[in-house]
C-alpha cells in the first residue's frame, strides 16, 4: 500500500475523522489508558528523566555513526550465516524479497507487524508473484481481512474499529458465526492463524532494534506472533528501517526499557525476543535461512539536516497517545501509515511536502508530544522547522499569509506603526464581543466569540497614569 493511505484531501479526511464519534471515543479512551499507564511506568523507575537522557544520548550517538554500526551489524549477521541486503529504495527491497520467495517456491508467507514493510508496499509485491501474505498481529489481521483498511495507529493499528464492525467483517469474509465479544473474536483468529502458521513457507518480521555487535535482531510483542513467525517457517526474512540499530546489548536494554514503558506502560512487553542468526548446527528449531533487509527509502536524506533527530524515534507511539489533535481527528486523517506528531514530521520527509503539506500545521504546538517522547526528540520544534521550510525554501505558504507576516514584521519593528495599530483597535472598540468576523477571523467566530478591543489600551492607561504622577518611578 505504501506510506500514503488516502487520495482524499486533508480537509475531507479530517472532516470524516471528526464526524466519526465512535472512533474518537475509542481513541480517547485508549489515549487516557495508555497515558496513565505510561506515567505510572515512568514514575516506577524513580529516575525517568535520566533514563530519557540516556536514551537520547544513545540514539544520538548511534545515528551519528550509523554507517559504522550498519557495517558491523551486517558483518556479524554474515558471520553467523545470515544474508544481508541493503536496499536504498522500496523496489530494491521488494525485488530481493520476492526473489527469495521465488527461489523457495513459497506459497504462503506469515508476517508479524512491521511498519517499514507497509512503507515499501511489500505485501503487494509478494502477492504479485503468487504468495499469500498473512498478517498475524491481531489488529493487522483484522485490517487485512477488511480489504486492507489502513492502520490508524503504529502500535494499535485497528484502534478505529469497534467490536461490532470486526464481527461483521469476520462474518462476511471468514464465515464467522460467533458474537462480537473480543475474547471470542480472538479465539477464532487464533484457530484461523495457527493453521496457517504451521504451513507457512516464509516468516517475515519487522525489527524493533538490531544489535550491531552481536548481529542480533529483536522483536517485542504481546501476542507472541513474532515468535511464531520466527520459529515455525524454514525461512525468515527481517525487514528493518536503517535507523533501527543499537551498538551493543547494553544500549539495547535501555531502549527496550524505554520502549516497553512508553508504548504500553509495561515493564517489559509479554515477549521480548532476540534472534541471532539462523538455526545453528545441533539446534532443535528455528529457521534454516535468515535474511536481513536494511531499508533506506529516504532516510539517509534526513541525515545531516535539522530533522536528523526524527531518526532517533523508537516507534513507541507515546507522542500519538498524548496528541490532542490525533484524539479528535484519528489516525486516517494524517493520510499516512505514520500518524500523530511523529507522522506529521516523518511523512513529509519520506513522502514529500506535496502530499503532506498540511500535516506540520495540524498541531497547536502544545508540546505534549515532546514531553512524552522517551528519547527526547523535540517534536513540536521539528514541526516548526517544517513550517519554516515551507515558507522559506518551498515557498508553499499562502500569499495572504506572507503579506500578513510582512506587515507583522513592520509593525513589530516599528513601534510608531505598532502604536497606530493599537490606536486603530481602540477606535473599533465596542461593548459586545464579536460574533461574526470578516476574512480569516470568520474561522474563529464560526465557533466562538472574539473579544472586542478595549476603549483604552493598556499603554494609553499607563501613559495617562504616568502623566498624572501616579507612577511608581
Amino acid at each position, binding site marked *: 500500500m505504501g506510506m500514503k493511505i488516502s487520495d482524499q484531501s486533508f480537509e475531507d479526511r479530517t472532516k470524516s475523522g471528526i464526524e466519526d464519534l465512535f472512533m474518537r471515543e475509542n481513541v480517547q479512551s485508549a489515549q487516557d489508558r495508555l497515558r496513565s499507564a505510561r506515567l505510572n511506568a515512568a514514575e516506577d523507575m524513580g529516575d525517568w528523566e535520566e533514563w530519557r537522557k540516556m536514551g537520547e544520548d544513545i540514539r544520538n550517538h548511534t545515528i551519528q555513526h550509523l554507517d559504522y554500526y550498519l557495517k558491523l551489524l551486517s558483518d556479524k549477521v554474515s558471520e553467523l550465516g545470515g544474508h544481508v541486503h541493503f536496499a536504498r529504495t522500496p523496489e530494491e527491497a521488494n525485488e530481493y524479497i520476492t526473489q527469495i520467495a521465488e527461489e523457495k517456491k513459497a506459497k504462503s508467507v506469515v508476517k508479524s507487524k512491521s511498519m517499514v514493510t507497509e512503507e515499501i508496499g511489500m505485501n503487494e509485491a509478494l502477492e504479485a508473484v503468487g504468495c499469500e501474505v498473512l498478517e498475524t498481529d491481531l489488529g493487522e489481521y483484522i485490517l487485512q481481512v477488511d480489504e486492507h483498511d489502513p492502520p490508524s495507529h503504529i502500535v494499535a493499528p485497528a484502534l478505529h474499529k469497534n467490536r461490532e464492525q470486526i464481527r461483521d467483517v469476520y462474518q462476511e469474509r471468514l464465515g464467522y458465526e460467533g458474537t462480537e465479544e*473480543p475474547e471470542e473474536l480472538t479465539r477464532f483468529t487464533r484457530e484461523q492463524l495457527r493453521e496457517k502458521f504451521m504451513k507457512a513457507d516464509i516468516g517475515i518480521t519487522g525489527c524493533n532494534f538490531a544489535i550491531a555487535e552481536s548481529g542480533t535482531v529483536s522483536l517485542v510483542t504481546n*501476542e507472541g506472533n513474532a515468535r511464531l513467525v520466527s520459529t515455525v517457517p524454514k525461512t525468515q526474512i527481517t525487514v528493518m528501517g536503517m535507523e533501527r540499530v543499537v551498538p551493543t546489548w547494553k544500549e539495547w536494554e535501555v531502549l527496550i526499557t524505554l520502549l516497553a514503558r512508553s508504548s504500553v506502560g509495561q515493564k517489559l512487553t509479554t515477549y521480548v525476543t532476540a534472534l*541471532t542468526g539462523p538455526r545453528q548446527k545441533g539446534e532443535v528449531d528455528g529457521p534454516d535461512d535468515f535474511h536481513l533487509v536494511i531499508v533506506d527509502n529516504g532516510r539517509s536524506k534526513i541525515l545531516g539536516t535539522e530533522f536528523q533527530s526524527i531518526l532517533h524515534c523508537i516507534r513507541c507511539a507515546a507522542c500519538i497517545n498524548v496528541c490532542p489533535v490525533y484524539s479528535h481527528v484519528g489516525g486516517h486523517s494524517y493520510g499516512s501509515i505514520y500518524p500523530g506528531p511523529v507522522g506529521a514530521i516523518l511523512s513529509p520527509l519520506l513522502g514529500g511536502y506535496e502530499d503532506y503539506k498540511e500535516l506540520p500545521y495540524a498541531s497547536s504546538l502544545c508540546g505534549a508530544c515532546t514531553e512524552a517522547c522517551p528519547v527526547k526528540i523535540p517534536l513540536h520544534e521539528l514541526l516548526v522547522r517544517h513550517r519554516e521550510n515551507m515558507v522559506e525554501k518551498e515557498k508553499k505558504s499562502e500569499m495572504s499569509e506572507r503579506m500578513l507576516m510582512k506587515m507583522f514584521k513592520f509593525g513589530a519593528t516599528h513601534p510608531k506603526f505598532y502604536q497606530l495599530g493599537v490606536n486603530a483597535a481602540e477606535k473599533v472598540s465596542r461593548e459586545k464581543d464579536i460574533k461574526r468576523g470578516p476574512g480569516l477571523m470568520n474561522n474563529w467566530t464560526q465557533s466562538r466569540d472574539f473579544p472586542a478591543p478595549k476603549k483604552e489600551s493598556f499603554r494609553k492607561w499607563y501613559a495617562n497614569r504616568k502623566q498624572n504622577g501616579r507612577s511608581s518611578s
Partner: protein
Amino acid sequence: MNGKIHNRERFLDEVRENLNKTLDSDRPLRKFTNPLAKSKSQLFSEEQLVEEFTDQSERLGIEWFRVNKSDLAQKISDILARFDTMRVSVWNDQETRSMVKGLPDNYEILFEGDSNQVLGHAETADFGITTCDYALAESGSVVLMNSRDKARAISLLPKRYIALVPKERLIYRITDVAKEVDEMDQVPTCINFISGPSNSADIEMDLVVGVHGPMEVFYIIVD
C-alpha cells in the same frame, strides 16, 4: 559459511556522505555502561527478589508456586491434573529432564530433541515445560536462552506453559541479563524474555489472553 552481503558499499557511502563524515576506523563508542541501573540484584537479598518476582507475576496473571526440589514432580503433576492434560512437551536438556523426573506415567511426556518432530509435538501438546536461565524480579519475567535441546517452540506452541525457576536464577532486571550476554563469546541464537500469557488489546483496547501463544502461564520456584 558466511552469508552474503548485497549492495552495501553504495548504501553506506550515501549514509556517510549525508552525515558528512569519513569512515570510522575505530569503534566510535566509549564503553557504555548504564549508570542508572545499579545492580539491585546485589542489593536485594534472595528473599526480596522472590517477593518482588512473585508480586509482579501475580500482576501479570501468572499463577506461581514455591516448592522444594523433592516436591517438584508432585507440584507439576498437580497442575497438569487440573486440566484435561494428555501430552506434555518438555525441553530435552539435562537440567529440565532431571527436574521433571518422577512425573506419573499417565501423561505422554515428549522430550523435544528431534528437530523433525518438535513443532508437531509442541503444537498438539497441552502443556510445555521448560526451566529458565534467568528470572527477572522487576518485571516478573523468565529468560530462556534457546539452544541445542532447548527448543523455542516449547514455551510457545502448547496451550499452557510451566516455567521452572531455580531460586538462584533470580536477578533484578533486564540490565543484568544484557550485561552477561554482552560478555558472551557466542550469543545464543534465540533469547526470549517471557512475561505472562500471550495477550492482545487490539479490539477496543480490551485485554484478551491467549492470542497466539500459551493461554496460561505457571511459575514454580524451586528452592
